[in-house]
């Protein structure tokens, strides 16, 4: 259980996620701590918010890596550090083979044509005093990029590509709906044909019927321009649709990283299990039969994360299943993110593949009829 999985004859299978040297983006032990200072004349650091605490993963060219987790897990901060909107406290960020972690702002500027970001809130991410033409045209002006027919023609063609009317070139953001504003943000992000786009919860603020339109648009653009996405989100259903591989984060650390189908059909980390079982399924009969794993208590503070495995204070396995010697291990030894199955990296001392959680029937596994944990009339919840 504690040794990493080594498949026969596959000596070059990565043992840790950052071993993937062919990847477009490789992040190794990335750390971002926000210092907490106290004092009036002289500020002393008395602690730190450990927002991102040793995160490693790799993203291959052309793929989408989903970064999921709940509030406070550090996924948005990770996205911002990767784009260097925030400087990392420690760790390496290899983009196209070059370590950009320590680059200064002036050195980063030329790389900004290659790394872009789409933000969550379509209302605050666009300057309300600029027209769409100015907003989408800004990348060309800032990077002094030459265009064939002029910036305006480029911008209008981008607007058309994302589904906006190019005649609205001179309109202001407040004249558009939320979904349309998000399209403007997307047009701005793809303007310079970047290699990598970090999408920070791009559809969370949108209505359900508009979400599907924007997700389809993002996929189309990815196919057309060969884009690579890091898709940060808390909605597991949307991530399942768009991502190729998914990393699950909790309290600043990656708990599990696996290809999409593997993660959704046989997750191995207890946190992934509870996350998946918590997502309500739009099917009343299935909902009534499902087993639910409820987490007890609240998220610990990232200022003072629990020792050993950060999840042990809420882990259903720790509470109910493990022996005292095993629990001691969870309390004292930080589990490393290692391959426990081909391509599946798990940070847990006692991982266990479970196939019946998110999509029991679809994965061809016999349903939960036999484990009748509170059927139609009950809540079907197992609070462990």
């Amino acid at each position: 259980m504690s040794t990493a999985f080594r498949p026969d004859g596959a000596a070059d299978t990565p043992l840790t996620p950052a071993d993937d040297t062919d990847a477009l983006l490789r992040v190794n032990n990335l750390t971002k701590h926000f210092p907490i200072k106290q004092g009036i004349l002289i500020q002393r650091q008395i602690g730190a918010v450990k927002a991102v605490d040793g995160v490693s993963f790799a993203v291959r060219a052309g793929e989408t890596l989903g970064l999921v987790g709940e509030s406070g897990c550090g996924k948005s901060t990770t996205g911002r550090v990767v784009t260097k909107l925030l400087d990392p406290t420690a760790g390496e960020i290899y983009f196209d083979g070059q370590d950009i972690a320590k680059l200064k702002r002036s050195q980063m500027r030329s790389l900004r044509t290659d790394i872009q970001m789409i933000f969550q809130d379509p209302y605050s991410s666009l300057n309300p005093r600029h027209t769409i033409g100015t907003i989408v045209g800004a990348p060309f002006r800032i990077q002094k990029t030459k265009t064939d027919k002029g910036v305006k023609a480029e911008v209008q063609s981008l607007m058309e590509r994302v589904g906006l009317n190019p005649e609205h070139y001179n309109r202001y953001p407040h004249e558009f709906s939320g979904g349309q504003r998000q399209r403007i943000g997307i047009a701005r992000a793809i303007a310079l044909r970047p290699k990598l786009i970090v999408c920070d919860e791009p559809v969370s603020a949108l209505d359900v019927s508009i979400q599907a339109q924007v997700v389809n648009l993002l996929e189309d653009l990815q196919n057309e321009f060969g884009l690579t996405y890091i898709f940060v989100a808390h909605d597991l259903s949307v991530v399942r649709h768009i991502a190729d591989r998914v990393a699950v984060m909790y309290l600043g650390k990656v708990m599990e990283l696996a290809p999409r189908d593997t993660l959704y059909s046989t997750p191995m980390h207890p946190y992934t299990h509870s996350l998946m079982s918590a997502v309500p399924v739009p099917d009343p009969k299935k909902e009534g039969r499902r087993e639910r794993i409820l987490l007890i208590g609240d998220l610990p503070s990232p200022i003072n994360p629990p020792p050993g495995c950060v999840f042990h204070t809420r882990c259903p396995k720790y509470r109910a299943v493990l022996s005292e010697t095993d629990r001691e291990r969870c309390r004292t030894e930080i589990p490393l993110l290692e391959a426990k199955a081909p391509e599946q990296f798990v940070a847990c001392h006692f991982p266990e593949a479970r196939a019946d959680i998110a999509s029991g029937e679809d994965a061809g596994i016999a349903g939960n009829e036999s484990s009748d944990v509170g059927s139609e009339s009950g809540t079907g919840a197992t609070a462990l």
Partner: protein
Amino acid sequence: MTAQPLVRLDKPDVGDAFLSVRDLRVHFPTADGLVKGVDGLSFDVRRGEIMGIVGESGSGKSVTSQAILGLHKGSQARITGEIWLDGHELVGASEEQMRSLRGDKMAMIFQDPLSSMHPFYRVGAQIAEAYLVHNKVSKAVAKKRTIEMLDRVGIPNPDKRFSDYPHQFSGGMRQRAMIAMALVCDPKLLIADEPTTALDVTVQAQILDLMKDLQREFNSAIILITHDLGVVAETCDHVVVMYGGQCVETGSVNDLFYEPEMPYAWGLLTSMPRMDRTRQERLQPIPGQPPSLIRVPKGCVFNPRCGFTEHVPGRLCYTDRPDLLPTSGGSAGHAVRCHIEPDERRRLWTGDIQPTL
């Protein structure tokens, strides 16, 4: 201390419905025109039932709940129709009468608990206040009841948390405190307006479980307003689907998920990415945007986005607003607002739409 609510003797036969909304219209006159927030809505809710109101932004779901609570009184809104709550008519009631009903017979849980609680007062004091308004008891008794409720909603160390301020609670705990505040007077009707949208999915699961437990224990009627169909499937017994200020389909939760008959409902089901089905290559969104409530489309409010208008003869979809009519498929209360013939609708669902899900 409170005015006696008016009990009308001419009330219509509402059967055993605790809440009955009849042809509710809420119109807001604005500089740009008349915004028809809600335009002819009727539904019933019984004790012990959870009714879901599903809709996107601008569908009128929040305006409806605010109208039930009488929160539009004193504003410019023009409200017509009737709302019957346990024998009291609410649209015609005065502010005094509403105040005596709020908290006591009906209560509301809002979406964002941080902005719904007063930041300057301790949580315990706010909850106790709600109890004291409707019950002539001492402060000590109110405090005891508050601590009981905090415990009941799963807040650890309730006697200590009684003296905390809202900002000292986490999001999930704050929502629990809001539920405690809403339930402290044992209201028979609870309206929850997107109670878990701002919460993480694991906390959402805890809160929804709590609401179902409490509903069973107190036999309350609950109206749950949400845009999340997963939440509806998990908690609701009956559903009202709202679009453009109108109800376009209503029925039991099984009607909506297994036998829907309105193209908008089909669109909602097909456009969601789902974890419990084979992954689709491409999502099937509903084209277009939600309608403007000032320039409401003539005829059927959904016609600009409907892909099935060719199944209706002539230009009926564009000229006549369809009525909400009962349909024979599904449960007894299943009703649909659509011009397509019922048999044709069922054929389209089983033949064309359902297989793609």
